[in-house]
């Protein structure tokens, strides 16, 4: 019988996918995201330089002032400069957001790698713990933990440390499972390399990208959560400027001074948008073709 597949012999027919278009799009959302977040982070870092006033400085005789040349975005109910508080709020919320995921990121990645690489009993123990933590509604767990530790930034850090690592652990575990089956890991194992070295040199570099992509959208969730805790009075405590407590305080003046609540709200949305765009862009760029 004469056989077989013509395409096996002929050079693989190229599949004309709109690669360029997609790459352009991916980098476009990445670029926009980096620009937005970059500007906000820059403002946060330079807060003491660019803020026209101290965020805590009250002027009790000029409260709820509208837009003026002295106060570009007006003043709040204690006569504090709204613009300065917005800028310092970025400082608080972004710093807290980033710091709050450091531990979950590291610990979750570690647990996920160990579970995925070693499998077996270690895997099932870690994953059962993950299942239990995930069963708690995120906000319920965070609020309950803030209750245990006490409101404020320390409470936020502890709450996220306990509640948030599981997501990284899950993602990294499944990525590690794939990598573990690959030939180069098998080769490395056959070559007698230590587990630590294989994990560090061959496994992690191939899985960490996913954790980084997730971290971007995670910072968004954390900032939203910090803001929400601020709204509930469990988050950053006064007088520290934070977008959540600003939204909460401004809610009382929604009819007369709508900007007080709306501006920090918009700030949260824009920051979230920027970080999500970075996450999406990174995911597209890092996704293996």
């Amino acid at each position: 019988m004469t056989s077989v597949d013509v395409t096996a012999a002929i050079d693989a027919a190229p599949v004309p996918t709109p690669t360029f278009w997609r790459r352009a799009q991916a980098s476009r959302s990445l670029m926009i995201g980096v620009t937005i977040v970059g500007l906000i982070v820059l403002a946060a870092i330079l807060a003491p330089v660019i803020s026209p006033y101290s965020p805590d400085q009250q002027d009790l005789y000029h409260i709820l002032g509208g837009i003026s040349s002295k106060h570009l975005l007006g003043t709040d109910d204690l006569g504090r400069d709204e613009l300065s508080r917005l800028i310092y709020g970025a400082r608080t919320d972004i710093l807290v957001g980033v710091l709050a995921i450091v531990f979950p990121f590291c610990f979750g990645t570690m647990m996920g790698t160990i579970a995925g690489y070693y499998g077996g009993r270690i895997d099932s123990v870690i994953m059962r713990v993950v299942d239990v933590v995930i069963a708690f509604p995120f906000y319920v767990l965070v609020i309950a933990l803030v209750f245990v530790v006490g409101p404020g930034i320390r409470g936020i850090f502890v709450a996220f440390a306990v509640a948030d690592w599981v997501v990284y652990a899950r993602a990294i575990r499944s990525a590690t499972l794939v990598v573990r089956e690959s030939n180069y890991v098998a080769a490395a194992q056959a070559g007698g390399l230590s587990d630590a070295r294989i994990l560090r040199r061959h496994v992690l570099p191939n899985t960490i990208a996913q954790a980084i992509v997730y971290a971007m959208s995670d910072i968004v969730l954390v900032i939203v959560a910090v803001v929400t805790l601020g709204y509930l009075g469990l988050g950053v405590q006064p007088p520290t400027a934070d977008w959540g407590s600003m939204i909460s305080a401004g809610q009382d003046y929604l009819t007369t001074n709508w900007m007080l609540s709306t501006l920090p709200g918009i700030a949260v949305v824009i920051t979230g948008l920027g970080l999500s765009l970075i996450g999406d862009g990174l995911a597209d760029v890092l996704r293996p073709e």
Partner: protein
Amino acid sequence: MSAVAVDTVLSVRDVTVSVLRGDVRYTAVDAVSFDVPAGRALGLVGESGSGKSLTLRALMSLLPPAARLEAGSVHLAGDELPRGVKQVRRALRGRMAMIFQDPLSALDPVQAVGNQIAEVPRRVHGRSRRQSWERAVELLRLVGIPDAPRRAHAYPHELSGGMRQRVVIAIALATEPSVLLCDEPTTALDVTVQAQVLELLDDLRSRLQLAIVFVSHDLAVIRQLCEDVCVMYTGRLVETGRTIEVLERPLHPYTLGLLDAIIDLDDPVGAPQPIPGALPELERLPGGCTFHPRCFLATEECTTTVPELSPARGAAPDRASACIHRDRLISP
């Protein structure tokens, strides 16, 4: 072109399909015409991306969103199919059916296979639930599935690849068609299973007097099943004729290239010779004969003149080729 033959069931004339890439439409199937009589199988062969599957889908009105039927007519048993997706589908009911390359993805994963077959008599022919189910079991038996009454309750993922393809065929047969379009139905299967499915199709063809259009990139498969063959390249038919003759004496350098690329078990000495270059992308089709950049016969003229598909001198009467140098290929 010759008039529609009396026993011709499916007659395709100048079917042209365009595809949207970015903001530009490109012609992906260019004025394809062929006839298939009852009880005969026509092979449509070419590399992936040559437009053969698109042609089939155009006939069934199953084009993907980016593709559009630009021109051409299809006659089924002498009746011209109407325009418009809905009208075509209604006109096709019970006359033409199609089977697909990947039998797993061609089946609804969350329905028992019996239901998927019985759905046709139930919904299309308005039979009773019981009758429909019996019909489904009967069809499963017809396509050679052992223990059909029990297997009818199985889900697609519970069946082997060959079984699944038999189920797909059974679904197609449920519509009681006179024409069966097969889109590489054996490609995803093991070689032994492939042979069984081909035997089944061949058996059905003769028993049910089905007209079959069989798309494949595998010349061996075509040879086994099809009396006639059309070779396609970049959306155009480049050679047609009796399968035996086309394969014995190709009249187009592309067909020749396809044959040379095959390991010939009868001639183990001659090493397979791949066709140089690659199938051009739609956006970058060369002018003139689209095959000329890869062709060993190409001349200056080939880069400018678009060759017509026309009968070759000195060959069998139903042979045609779209190469201006075809006469140079007729050699003993």
